[in-house]
């Protein structure tokens, strides 16, 4: 059939055509049969794409698996990118901190020399060293703000803080940049003293505000963690039941689970109090800026203590969960697996 078509394309007479010319009735039958066959192939071929497109469950599983792997790879790449960005911010902070501490020592030495010598040369030297000390202090404050701005602006943290925390931080960075210009222009001891005093006041404000912002994110994350461990707790109970159904003694496993539950209950209680404290946010305006420094300081002091306590309890819970998983694996020895979602799986192997 294809030879025939090809011969026509090439302008030659095909063997079939030759047969038709010289054949007679037999040739007509042959043509009819051939036409029927081609028609049948045509009809079948219409379904070929549909049939080929239908995937078997195994193919579907493989495809889903590939998609999952690719998604996990993308998430891993994103995680690495974020870690790299954070590392760069942190590195910058560490450098500025080191330079500030060096500048502070040099400034103290220069001040000591002026006290001893009290001459123009020492005075001039102190002026240079004071400028350096102030500039380095401002640089360190800016890099501190940059780290916290990065935290606040992270995709998963967006929307947690109701006001424009990032804008507030940016405003402080601008203030600090302006302060740097003032330092460059400063000439007298009074100029330097004024700038230093301004910087100290600003730092107090920055410290309170950024701690407040981080506190809000910490509360959100701690609550998310506590919701997550609620699901874990359900899985733990299921694990115990499955083992019991297999006739395995679960006394120790139950003790581990009970310890875990107690720690989580403590953490929840603590977190609830912290949430209540942050709902009032004493000393801070609804825009997240300090409105009363003393009240804000007291609120942050209390909040900091409570959050540290919660984080410690959550660490203990994570550690206790490991104890449970280890005990479960020892008992199950691969005989039992209890699977939940892809993120929460206990297996006995």
């Amino acid at each position, binding site marked *: 059939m294809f030879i025939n078509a090809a011969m026509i394309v090439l302008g030659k007479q095909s063997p079939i055509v030759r047969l038709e010319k010289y054949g007679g009735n037999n040739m007509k039958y042959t043509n009819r049969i051939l036409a029927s066959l081609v028609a049948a192939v045509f009809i079948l071929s219409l379904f070929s794409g549909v049939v080929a497109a239908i995937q078997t469950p195994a193919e579907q599983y493989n495809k889903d698996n590939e998609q999952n792997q*690719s998604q996990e790879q993308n998430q891993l790449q994103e995680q690495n990118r*974020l*870690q790299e960005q954070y590392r760069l911010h942190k590195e910058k902070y560490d450098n500025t901190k080191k330079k500030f*501490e060096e500048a502070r020592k040099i400034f103290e030495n220069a001040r000591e020399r002026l006290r001893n010598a009290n001459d123009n040369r020492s005075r001039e030297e102190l002026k240079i060293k004071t400028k350096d000390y102030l500039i380095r202090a401002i640089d360190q404050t800016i890099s501190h703000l940059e780290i916290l701005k990065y935290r606040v602006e992270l995709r998963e943290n967006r929307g947690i803080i109701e006001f424009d925390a990032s804008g507030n931080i940016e405003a402080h960075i601008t203030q600090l940049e302006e302060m740097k210009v003032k330092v460059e222009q400063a000439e007298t001891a009074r100029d330097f003293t004024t700038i230093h005093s301004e910087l100290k006041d600003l730092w107090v404000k920055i410290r309170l505000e950024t701690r407040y912002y981080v506190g809000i994110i910490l509360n959100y994350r701690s609550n998310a963690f506590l919701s997550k*461990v609620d699901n874990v707790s359900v899985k733990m109970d299921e694990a115990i039941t499955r083992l019991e159904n297999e006739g395995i003694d679960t006394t120790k496993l139950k003790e581990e689970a009970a310890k875990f539950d107690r720690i989580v209950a403590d953490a929840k209680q603590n977190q609830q109090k912290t949430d209540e404290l942050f709902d009032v946010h004493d000393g801070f305006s609804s825009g997240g800026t300090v409105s009363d420094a003393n009240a804000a300081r007291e609120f942050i002091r209390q909040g900091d203590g409570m959050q540290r306590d919660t984080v410690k309890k959550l660490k203990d819970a994570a550690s206790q969960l490991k104890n449970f998983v280890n005990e479960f694996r020892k008992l199950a020895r691969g005989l039992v697996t209890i699977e939940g979602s892809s993120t929460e799986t206990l297996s006995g192997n």
Partner: protein
Amino acid sequence: MKLVYILIVLVVAAFTLGCIGNKPAEPSTSAPIAPVETSVSTGATTAPVAPVETSVPTGATTAPASEDPFGTDMDVADLDSMLADSSMDISLMDSI
């Protein structure tokens, strides 16, 4: 005879359509659905899987899945790192 050639052309066209129908499906933009059912299996050898999260800007090392089956270590490391960042201080002098 013409009918035969017309049919040949149609067959070729149909095969082409078949190829179109068989092209690989576009990757779906929706997240794959994880199995949610709880099942008990005997002698299973699958390793527990830790969740992959993008929420860790901590630089903390990620524990292997078998050591952190619920991803809780990673979460705690993140909380710890946030606390550490908020505690950063600057040792300004009392006066100059």
